[in-house]
């Protein structure tokens, strides 16, 4: 009875989460004539016309490449700087550690809307408007507090003795970080990286404001710009959404085990 309840609950959660995606998937393969009609719920025939349209009629491949480059680079930057900062906060006991961590959290509470105008001006002044580098900088900056906060928890989960042992066994602080701390916090790093990547991949506001052409435009903005003056191409929007979601699903599946391990990284025991 209890098991049954659990299954029903899980099914409900899955349905709730997956229904919009299923709707998009259905819409993306429906013939154009059936798009704005209900019934039929299921398409009478499956068409790939919308998918062809987004790659033929729009520079969608370029948008995907932009999104991928921006997200990957920003994730690498956030992980690189974030893991160093998190390690220092967790193990080197610098003065003012509590205040620093609190400030990091406070930073991540800042609503993006509040910073969008100054960033627009700054990016313009630095010549970074409508460039991938500009987006990479802004994204990594915004992801950094989250990354530091999360990874500080993972590093704290590694016992102090292991750090001390590494230092006495001949490592500098940096050596101990690279040879002992980083491998042990790797699951946490993966989990953090995935979260940051997803954040960058889905980000819309900055991408919309800081880009003006396909040179740096990302997928979410590209899809939002599909609608023309006279019509909303629901089929193409749906196809674009499905294509944009697929890499995230694949990433999540690929790293699922490591992420789960990351979420319990506190259990690392000497």
């Amino acid at each position, binding site marked *: 009875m209890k098991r049954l309840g659990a299954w029903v609950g899980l099914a409900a959660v899955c349905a709730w989460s997956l229904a919009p995606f299923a709707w998009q998937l259905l819409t993306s393969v429906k013939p154009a004539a059936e798009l704005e009609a209900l019934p039929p719920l299921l398409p009478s025939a499956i068409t790939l016309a919308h998918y062809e349209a987004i790659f033929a009629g729009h520079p969608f491949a370029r948008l995907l490449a932009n999104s991928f480059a921006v997200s990957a680079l920003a994730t690498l930057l956030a992980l690189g700087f974030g893991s160093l900062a998190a390690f220092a906060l967790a193990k080197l006991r610098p003065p003012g550690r509590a205040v620093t961590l609190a400030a990091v959290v406070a930073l991540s509470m800042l609503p993006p809307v509040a910073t969008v105008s100054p960033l627009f001006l700054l990016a313009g002044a630095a010549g970074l408007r409508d460039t991938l580098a500009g987006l990479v900088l802004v994204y990594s900056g915004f992801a950094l507090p989250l990354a530091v906060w999360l990874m500080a928890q993972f590093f704290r989960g590694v016992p102090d003795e*292991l750090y*001390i*042992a590494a*230092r006495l*066994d001949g*490592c500098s602080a940096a050596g101990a970080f690279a040879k002992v701390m980083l491998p042990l916090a790797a699951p946490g790093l993966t989990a953090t990286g995935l979260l940051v990547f997803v954040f960058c991949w889905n980000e819309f506001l900055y991408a919309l404001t800081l880009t003006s052409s396909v040179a740096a435009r990302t997928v979410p903005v590209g899809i939002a710009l599909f609608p023309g003056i006279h019509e909303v191409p629901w089929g193409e929007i749906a196809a674009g959404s499905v294509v944009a979601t697929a890499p995230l699903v694949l990433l999540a599946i690929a790293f699922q085990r490591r992420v789960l391990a990351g979420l319990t990284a506190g259990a690392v025991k000497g």
Partner: protein
Amino acid sequence: MASIAFERVSKRFGPAVVAAGLSLEIADGEFFVFLGPSGCGKSTLLHMLAGIETPDEGTLRIGGADVVGVPPQRRDIAMVFQSYALYPHLDVFENLAFPLRNRGLGGSALRAEVTRMAATLGLDGLLVKKPGELSGGQRQRVALGRALIRRPVAFLMDEPLSNLDAALRLEIREEIKRVHQSHRITTVYVTHDQEEAMALADRIAVLREGRIVQCDAPEAIHARPADTFVARFVGTPPMNLVPAALFARDAALLARLEGRDRGSVTVGVRPHDLEARTQGNGLEARVVLLEPAGSITWVVAEVGGVRLKARLAADARLTPGGAARLAFRAEAAHLFDATSRRRIER
């Protein structure tokens, strides 16, 4: 190989005093034990030697050189921890090899060293295992090996036996002593377990609130505790402490107290030296309970509101609630000043 010296070292963490003007010399090759109650900051003394903590004041010397400000990796010291602190992502071979790799050793020379160390500590079959697959005893052997393999100038050991069960604790304790006897590497060992300290140490420093209460050979500390704190802390069961006024009729003891106000003296008698009999001379006591311990049976008895522990005399039959006589040789009594708690020599 190196001597170690603390010179007027002070360290505090907020309100907790870890060291208050601590001065101490540890000889080259000595097995030195810091003994103190849990939470008295003993580990921090080791961390200062290791270079993880810096003293607020004073100087630390290793091999004569001032090491304050020298980073841990350049002190050539090895440490063994209560939690083993093996690198969980590396197998036993790599754990043992870790300090050597950091010195640039590799290839067949490295393999030879690791194999030799594994053989010495009986770890041959375990080289490909991860620490997670080892038992507690095996883990601590690997930790010992990792510390020993690069022949450091000094060993620091932070309660290395505390996580092991009773049988293993004795086994690894012997292993540690054997390693010390064969290598004679200066060892600074921290524990709250006085039995461990007695069994291992060349010299013991009993610590309390950042000060050394007494520093001497184990036998000397046991035979002549410097104050009532050491008297209670060293030796099992702990020494009985009784106001001298209770012994109004013990002529031999009174002779030792000659010329002192009896109200100002505390008498200490180890339970081993205090015999509980059915009758005869001695303090009149009421038996509270009996505690068999194999070859000895301990008697907990009450005299004038004071609880004492005594050894049951071979031929005595005592029952809880019944009467007993507690007798001891006057020479076996330790005398302490009741106010300063310091030992009175006479």
